[in-house]
């Protein structure tokens, strides 16, 4: 006991000594990053592969977006449209099934090899045959390993033809082709690195299409070349002098893996990094007040939500679903935990996507919620659990919601867990309530509509495991409406269909969508041209320079 007390006291003493030393210390000499190099602090621990046919994580999207080219890219001046990247022009056949792309002349890969339509065809073939996580984005057009060489083929050196199985809305097809999985790889270079594979029931091809090599290798034509990726440590990109567009201004861009907001802030203030990318509100505030630093932000295609598992009989009652929507203190969240990093947004399509609906009808209203709970026969409330990933802002949001639910008599037990742990449980539909973020798989309204508003088979064995499925929300009508919106060729009409869908989901769903993520960055003032894009693969660094 004595020992403990003493230890405790000495701990305070030590803290006191350190703190006073800290206050007495003068202004330090500043570390400086090299003039031709941009160093960003970013949590890159999600990266598992750099192969564009396989990569599907947020950090990888940024690297792929800067190191690979596509046929078409999102038009940053109007994100409901696409513009040509490697493609100079394209046409859609009258039956709406065949898309013909003509490539720009004189294109080259970073390796020096010319870019031909055969490279595009090979890129599609390998993505489909590898069948990794993002392959469905191309595969959903009725393309599989057996027909891909016919459906995605080179007509001649500069003409590429892509054939889909239904007359989809062209905006849908083109948006999907702007996803990173459709990045064009250097076929000649990749083929030099293919590894032999013994075919099996799960994979019937005799080679890996260079996947093992491309996990850490590079075969692209973007503004930057990937020089190195070391898991959980660093990503290094170097300028590609063969790039077809405007050449990058800096010679090198380095992403250092840094997970903590406070660590990023320290390193930014000390000048060891030029940009800090994972800042929490208080660090963001401090940076905004520092004369050498500045901040910037951009709304991202990611929404944060809580969802109620319909397997829980209490949560399955329509009135309870409604009541929850009145039991989130949106305003308090937005002025504290989400300050600067999120905007209140209650519909499933993020701003900037075709068909977005900017309506936030729900306000914190305990009386109204109590009324609804009483109608559901739960006037005295009930107990329920919520699985929460132990990181910000999830933890802070969960605590706020716990408190507001309590005011209506709902006892919420928070189950904290590692990201992978909570996700494992969520995917198995073993949760009561889940809080998390959802990022679009590709920049088209169907991506979120499909996951929030369709559930073709609600059985435990259901093959299409959308978010609606994970929460056991059985919705045959909405599923049909979601499918119909895909075939609407008129963009305006298509947008109206999604708006209608969002209104229904807003009103009846077990999803309480809270906010849309604002991606923020703190940066040193000597940077010029730094801008965050509307998606993770449009955080371009080619235009950045240093003074």
């Amino acid at each position, binding site marked *: 006991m004595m*020992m403990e007390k*003493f*230890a405790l006291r*000495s*701990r305070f003493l*030590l*803290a006191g000594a*350190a703190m006073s*030393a*800290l206050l007495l*210390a003068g202004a*330090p*000499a500043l*570390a400086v*990053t*090299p003039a031709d*190099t941009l*160093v960003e602090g970013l949590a890159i*621990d*999600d990266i*598992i*592969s750099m192969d564009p046919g396989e990569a*599907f*994580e947020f950090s990888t999207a940024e690297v792929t977006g800067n190191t690979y080219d596509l046929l078409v890219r999102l038009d940053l001046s109007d994100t409901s449209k696409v513009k040509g990247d490697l493609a100079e022009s394209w046409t859609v056949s009258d039956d709406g099934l065949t898309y013909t792309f003509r490539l720009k002349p004189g294109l080259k890969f970073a390796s020096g090899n010319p870019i031909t339509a055969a490279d595009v065809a090979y890129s599609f073939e390998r993505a489909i045959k590898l*069948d*990794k*996580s993002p*392959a*469905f984005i191309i595969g959903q057009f009725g393309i599989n390993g057996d027909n891909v060489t016919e459906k995605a083929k080179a007509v001649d050196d500069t003409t590429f033809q892509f054939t889909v199985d239904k007359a989809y809305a062209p905006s849908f097809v083109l948006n999907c082709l702007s996803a990173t999985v459709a990045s064009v790889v250097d076929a000649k270079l990749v083929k030099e690195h293919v590894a032999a594979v013994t075919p099996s029931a*799960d*994979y019937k091809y005799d080679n890996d299409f260079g996947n*093992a090599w491309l*996990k*850490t290798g590079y075969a692209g034509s973007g503004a930057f070349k990937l020089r190195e990726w*070391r*898991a*959980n*440590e*660093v990503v*290094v990109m170097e300028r590609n002098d063969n790039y077809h567009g405007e050449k990058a201004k800096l010679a090198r861009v380095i992403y*250092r*893996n*840094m997970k903590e907001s406070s660590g990023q802030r*320290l*390193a930014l*203030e*000390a000048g*060891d990094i030029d940009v800090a990318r994972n800042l929490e509100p208080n660090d963001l505030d401090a940076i905004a007040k520092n004369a050498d630093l500045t901040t910037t932000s951009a709304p991202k295609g990611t929404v944060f939500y809580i969802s109620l598992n319909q397997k829980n009989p209490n949560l399955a009652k329509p009135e309870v679903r409604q009541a929850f929507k009145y039991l989130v203190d949106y305003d308090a969240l937005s002025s504290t935990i989400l300050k600067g990093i999120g905007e209140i947004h209650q519909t499933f399509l993020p701003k900037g996507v075709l068909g977005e609906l900017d309506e936030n009808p729900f306000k914190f209203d305990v009386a109204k919620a109590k009324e609804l709970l009483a109608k559901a026969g739960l006037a005295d409330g009930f107990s329920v659990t919520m699985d929460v990933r132990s990181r910000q802002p999830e933890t802070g949001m969960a605590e706020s919601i716990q408190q507001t639910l309590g005011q209506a008599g709902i006892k919420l037990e928070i189950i904290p*867990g*590692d*990201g*992978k*742990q909570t*996700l*494992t449980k969520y*995917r198995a539909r073993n949760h009561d309530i889940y809080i998390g973020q959802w*990022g679009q798989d590709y920049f088209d309204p169907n991506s979120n509509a499909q996951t929030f508003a369709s559930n073709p088979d609600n059985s435990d064995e259901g*093959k*299409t*495991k959308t978010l609606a499925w994970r929460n056991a929300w059985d919705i045959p009508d909405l599923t049909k409406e979601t499918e119909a919106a895909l075939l609407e060729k008129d963009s305006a009409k298509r947008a109206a269909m999604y708006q209608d869908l969002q209104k229904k989901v807003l009103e009846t769903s077990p999803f309480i969508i809270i906010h849309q993520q604002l991606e923020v960055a703190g940066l040193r003032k000597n940077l010029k041209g730094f801008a965050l894009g509307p998606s993770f693969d449009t955080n371009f660094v080619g235009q950045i320079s240093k003074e």
Partner: protein
Amino acid sequence: MSTVESEATAGRGSARAVAVASSIARFLVIAITTYLGLLAVTFFIGRVIPIDPVLAVLGDRAPANVVERTRREMGLDLPLIEQFYIYVKNALNGNFGTSVLTTNPVMTDIRRAFPATIELATLGTLIGAFLGVPLGVLAAVRRGSIIDQIVRIIGLVGYSVPIFWLGLLALVLFYARLQWVAFPGRLDIVYEYTFTPITGFYLLDALWQRQWDVFRDAFRHIILPASLLGYFSLAYISRMTRSFMLNELAQEYIVAARAKGLSETRIIWGHALRNAAVPMVTVIALSYAGLLEGSVLTETVFSWPGIGLYITNSLQNADMNAVLGGTIVIGSVFIGINLLSDLLYRVLDPRTKVR
């Protein structure tokens, strides 16, 4: 030399050989059992934690059909006991599989990460031993004095303050405020891509290649985490030295030495410390082993790319092959150092040779 004598010598020699062989055999049995236990515990912990290893291979956003296919490919649909059998078989061949995070074989990653940990722990132990032993001796000699009190407080703080907390404080002070030491990591970005390590021990490599600026930079990076580890090992070493020394100073031979009129310096440093040195070897070795395995938090705080950070990252990402491989390697080192200190003890202390 007479025949009788040489026979007697041979007899003693063979008795000794038997003794050595039996102690080696005993050690082997202990080592093998420990290993199997370690394999089983790590494997089953890896399988019962509520994290799906498939997520590590595929990331958070993989569609359901891909998840199911990958689960089959990873053999996770097999019965647990069969998975364990395959795992042990591979592990015995030194094959811990591929890390899904780095895409390298786990052993390759460990070979790269381990020198970083050894470098840090060695420097830490050196600091701890060079400061801890004299401090312990001083405290023992001046027992009850103000010096003794100070040494004991230093030791107590080192024992009771969590290392990550002290690490963060030190970072804020020495890095962010004073800028005396460098940013977490092993080298500045500038050198990361110009310097080619040979052995993986950056300080030695830089010296060997006469790259003084690299040496300086590497030193600026290692000094803070090494000092912290050194402090923790100092706390342990000084306390143990003190108690060993007190024990020796109370022995009769010290009284005899004093009676013979030997100088106090010779009595303390020449006689008492020499005898206390034998158990000290074990203490320092154990502290070294402790730093090797216990640097997990320090490495995390200081982004030190050693084995501790490797295991932490792997664990957070459910990269089970890497976690298991790393744990086994650290376990082996622990077993190895224990054996080594045990042997050294026997060599240094003549009394332990006769059994």
